[in-house]
């Protein structure tokens, strides 16, 4: 292994991960723990996903009972795992200039992992298989699993939501304290003066993003509560639950949870990329308006999951389409173009971390293209709940958010351990990209041929798409194994690196 020291003096305006005058070593350790737990769970959930694809290809057929259990755990586990990895990276990045409590973050991790454990028990032992979207009333009407299994799943969600809530409140309070209030953490005076009023110190982009994410996390948990409480009351015989109400609230919760992962990990790009390009990514007016708008836009378009529910008011459907288009604008115009501008003619050295960040930029946009097409109501009329849906979210998850999270993990490990990635590991992002692209592209092709999603049994004419995908999954797995191996070799040094920080 090349042990040349990587951590060098940063260019002006670039905040190093290690705060020289702050005790953020303990928080960096929690951040590493989140990344290990999140990306480790991601790998395990990925194995489950591989079995689903094998089943759909007809190569290794699972019983419908096990297919749907695995499907449920794969979905819930992936959303929770990727978000957890992102939250760890975000806390680490924020801690360089904002004081966070490592103790609170450890408690969050324990609560969150307890929730994930409940979902594992509910699905693998309890046989719960209502899908991660737990679309009411299926959880209590599955016919092949018990009410206890459904309750265990809900308790799991409750714990994950509680963990997220505690994290969000902690981050929001901490960033607000650093800048003298929530309005200042969101740079509102700067925003509404069109960038002229610079009296308040501006938060770093990653701190602004952390505040935005925290607000939407609290909103998501609130929606989850509005979903869960009536269902518990219904289970107790107190009231009945309207199916459309349940669908709306669960999608505000679930859609926001899924989107949070993407935006959290996008925040990691702001935090890490400048270190490689040696160009600062300042808090400009464009960055502020883009991210402050995300607060509303992330919540406004959940209804695009409900286009096929004709009982939903048409105005809400149209609003969802507008919201779905609108949310693409700040992300693409500000974050994506900003990241590409940072890279262009920067002279950056293509180590594993920037390779993964660049891959994530590609995947986020390509997945977004599929999403925007599907959020157009007449297109959704023929694509809804076909393989097109997993196609787009696998793209911006696997090739977007997850690539960002791995990239940030490599950045952290390099910074903290003072070691460079193995030369051979630079092959891994290529394998990841090629394997991942082939894997997700076959979802898109299947969706365009109207192959349904969430089918345990695939007709013979549908199996070809999964069969072509399988070798790409193996290439992807090889890439991911390479990344994990490299990180395992250097992780201990990175952990030790956090302990050298003053006061930790």
């Amino acid at each position, binding site marked *: 292994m090349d042990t040349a020291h990587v951590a060098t003096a940063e260019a002006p305006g670039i905040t190093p991960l290690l705060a020289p005058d702050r005790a953020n070593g303990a928080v960096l350790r929690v951040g590493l723990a989140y990344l290990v737990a999140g990306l480790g769970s991601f790998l395990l959930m990925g194995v489950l996903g591989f079995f689903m694809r094998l089943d759909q290809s007809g190569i290794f057929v699972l019983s*419908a*009972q096990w297919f*749907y259990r695995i499907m449920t755990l794969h979905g819930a586990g992936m959303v929770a795992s990727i978000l957890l990895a992102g939250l760890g990276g975000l806390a680490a990045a924020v801690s360089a200039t904002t004081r966070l409590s490592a103790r609170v973050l450890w408690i969050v991790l324990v609560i969150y992992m307890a929730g994930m454990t409940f979902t594992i028990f509910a699905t693998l032992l309890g046989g719960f*298989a209502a899908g991660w979207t737990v*679309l009411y*009333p*299926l959880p209590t*009407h*599955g*016919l*092949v699993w018990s009410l206890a299994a459904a309750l265990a799943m809900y308790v799991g969600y409750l714990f994950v939501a509680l963990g997220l809530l505690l994290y969000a409140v902690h981050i929001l309070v901490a960033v607000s304290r650093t800048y003298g209030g929530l309005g200042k953490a969101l740079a509102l005076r700067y925003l509404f003066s069109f960038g002229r009023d610079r009296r308040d110190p501006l938060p770093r982009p990653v701190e602004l993003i952390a505040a935005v994410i925290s607000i939407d996390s609290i909103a998501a948990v609130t929606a989850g509560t509005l979903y869960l409480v009536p269902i518990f009351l219904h289970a107790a015989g107190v009231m009945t639950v309207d*199916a*459309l109400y349940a669908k709306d609230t669960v999608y505000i919760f679930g859609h926001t949870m899924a989107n949070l992962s993407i935006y959290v990990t996008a925040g990691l790009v702001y935090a890490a990329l400048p270190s490689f390009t040696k160009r600062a990514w300042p808090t400009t007016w464009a960055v502020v308006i883009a991210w402050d708008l995300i607060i509303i836009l992330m919540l406004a378009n959940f209804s695009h999951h409900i286009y096929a*529910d*004709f*009982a939903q008011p*048409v105005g809400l459907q149209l609003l969802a*389409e507008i919201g779905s*288009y*609108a949310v*693409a*604008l700040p992300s*693409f*115009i500000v974050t994506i*173009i900003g990241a*590409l*501008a*940072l*890279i262009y*003619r*920067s*002279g*950056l050295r293509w180590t594993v971390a920037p390779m993964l960040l*660049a891959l994530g*930029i*590609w995947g986020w*946009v*390509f997945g977004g*293209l*599929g999403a925007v*097409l599907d959020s157009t*109501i*007449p*297109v959704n*009329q*023929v*694509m*809804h*709940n*076909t393989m*097109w849906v997993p196609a787009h979210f696998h793209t911006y998850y696997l090739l977007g958010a997850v690539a960002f999270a791995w990239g940030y993990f490599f950045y952290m490990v390099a910074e903290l351990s003072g070691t460079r990635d193995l030369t051979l590991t630079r092959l891994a992002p290529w394998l990841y990209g090629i394997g991942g692209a082939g894997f997700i592209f076959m979802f898109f*092709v299947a969706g*365009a*041929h*109207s192959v349904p999603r*969430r*089918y*345990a*049994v695939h007709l013979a*004419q549908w199996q070809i798409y999964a069969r072509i995908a399988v070798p790409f999954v193996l290439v992807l797995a090889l890439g991911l194994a390479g990344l994990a191996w490299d990180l395992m070799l250097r992780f201990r040094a990175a952990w030790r690196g956090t302990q050298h920080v003053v006061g930790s």
Partner: protein
Amino acid sequence: MVDPLGILVVLIALGVIWTVGWAVIIARSGHPVPFETLEGSETRVRVSLLAGMVIVAIVLFFLTLRALPYEAARRAELGAPRVTVMATGTQWSWALSRKQIPMGVPVEFAVTSRDVNHDFAIYDPRGHVVAQTQAMPGYTNRLIYVFQTPGTYTVRCLEYCGLGHTAMTAALTVTRQ
């Protein structure tokens, strides 16, 4: 009606444009120049892209308004339905009030569910989805569609509804009048 394969072609075309643009930037990461020298062109790129994306979004939105699948819009476009089919989903089968459908006239499917959420999706004889709506307990969703080609259409459930989800199919026969 939107052709799903056409959407794939659009995705591939947009994907190729994006990939080429991305690759050009990545390939030109060397030969560093001061960041300040790029600021003007970065702003121009942002403004041009923003204008282009907003125009495309507005066009797509107005196209959407002309092709809404919802009851009022379909009635305004096609007139009153000539045939009504009651469709009720139950774990794990469809109950249809009729299975013989005339071609070329507006057909209304009044879709509901007796238990959990289902999705009433109509597949044409080639195996492509042509229309769909959710079957929800407590609600009746009205899907109006004109069949232009005779043959056997398959109804599939596209909302995961439990163990027997994939078996939840029914056949519709569309005949010339």
